[in-house]
């Protein structure tokens, strides 16, 4: 048996991320395409100060530890689909 791949999506719950579009990212679960639905786990994470410590823009999410800025539902889905297609799961 091979170990099942799970994409852990952590959404920053800080106020800045929330106001700048992060508020609607938890809806990701309702938008996941069938083929990746069972492989994605969505969670919140306490603000890790990516907004002050990088020059990147909110909202921030971590996908299996990989940082994504200006995250949107579409962007997250694309990222995961690409990982699946190119077999670059981390």
């Amino acid at each position, binding site marked *: 048996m091979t170990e099942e791949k799970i994409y852990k999506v952590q959404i920053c*719950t*800080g*106020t*800045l991320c*929330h*106001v*700048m*579009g992060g*508020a*609607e990212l*938890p*809806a990701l679960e*309702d938008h996941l395409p069938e083929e990746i639905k069972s492989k994605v786990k969505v969670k*919140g994470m*306490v*603000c890790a100060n990516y907004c002050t410590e990088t020059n990147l823009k909110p909202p921030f999410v971590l996908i299996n530890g990989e940082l994504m800025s200006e995250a949107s*539902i579409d962007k997250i889905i694309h990222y995961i689909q690409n990982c699946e297609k190119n077999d670059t799961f981390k």
Partner: protein
Amino acid sequence: MTHSNNATLTRRELLIQLCKLLKEDTIEEQIDRIPLNMRPKGNQSLRCCVHKDRAVLKYKIMALLGFNIDDETDELTSLQDYLHLAKERKTLTPKVMTVVDEACSSCQQGSYNVSNMCKGCEARPCAVNCPKDAVHFVKGQAEIDHDVCVNCGKCLQECPFHAIIYSPVPCEEACPVKAISKDEQGIEHIDYDKCIYCGKCMAACPYGAIMEKSHIIEIFQAWESKKEIIALVAPSIIAQFRQSVPKIYNAIKKMGFSDIIEVAEGAEMTIEHETEEWSERMHAGCQLMTTSCCHAYTELVKKHIPELEGKVSETPSPMVYAGKLAKERFPNAVTVFIGPCTAKRHEAFFVEDIDYTLSFEELGALLVANNIEVEEMNNEIDIKYANSDAQFFAQSGGVSRAIINKADESLKEEIINGIDKTSIRQLKQIAKGKTESNFIEVMSCEGGCLAGVNSLIKGKQAVTVFQKNQEEISS
């Protein structure tokens, strides 16, 4: 719109920048730099060039400072000058929205056009079915004569190749009462004799060209003067953050509000009086009564369905009652209504007990500027929450639910969930007596205040968060 878009995010970013500078007290020196910082040289521009982008941002800031863009007399007036004017002004205006002409892209008049998918088929149902003979064929391709076309859309329905496309003007399309239209230059203007302040144009414009004029400057001035400031929070507040209600309220207090009054507490009084009023009207032989808490709806009746006027409840809205409570409890305090609604800002202008209004977006920006993480707030608060019926005013059907729980069984409700062209026709029928119901609830936003144009969490998610938080505070 279920999801926020870049135009919304630009508005929020501007609000955050503005609030940060106000908070740091560096606004005098920095305000004219905001457009430059947000659109630095060398970056890709959204419009023709970076200069146009910056000009758009400048005028959006002018709106956030509370000005009508139309009122500009000298284009060289800097944002710093506007800041001074804002600080000196003594009165607000009931024109709560303004069109940023620089941002308005003068979308082409809504029209039907033939795309290059047209195959010039033999059937030509577009031409055959056109009631105005506006479709002709040139070099085997259909063409629409726009001088004759009446925009009926028959050609679009008939074309087997889906070759005909409709290009709308989003703001005009969203406006339920034809209150926004173009001038000779193609720039949109709001006709305040028709406008019901529902904010749908603002949410619809893909350029973010319609802006709400904020009261942020006035609120900061109140803070500086060390006056007591009371936050009157709309019931939909509990669906704005995925955090517990005590944390949300404590965050608002930490920001500088000395106390919180739930507008739902005012809703308790609205329920009481509106139920009584309904019973009295029924005893007096009236056929029906409609709600009055949604200000966009009462404006709609006043300006567009006068035949309904005598049927609208005269009971004041929850905000009015909450304002009264605030001034009774804190006679010298400044009162700020915090909500998701452009129409409430208009209503508040005429309510003596409400001094200023703050949208949920503005509240979010203020929290960011104050470095307040709602999550880190204390989970306990000394407050007596309003009852659930009152809290549910935030949702479409909520007012009915509350009144049903109080009134006798003869009450038959009908819920108009969202004001659009169709529901306006329906309301006109109701005015003629064509309904089985005797209690009509009307909400301008589909879904109720939870779907207000300024909400931070939208759609189904807002309903989920609302229910979770509502259960927590009522248990």
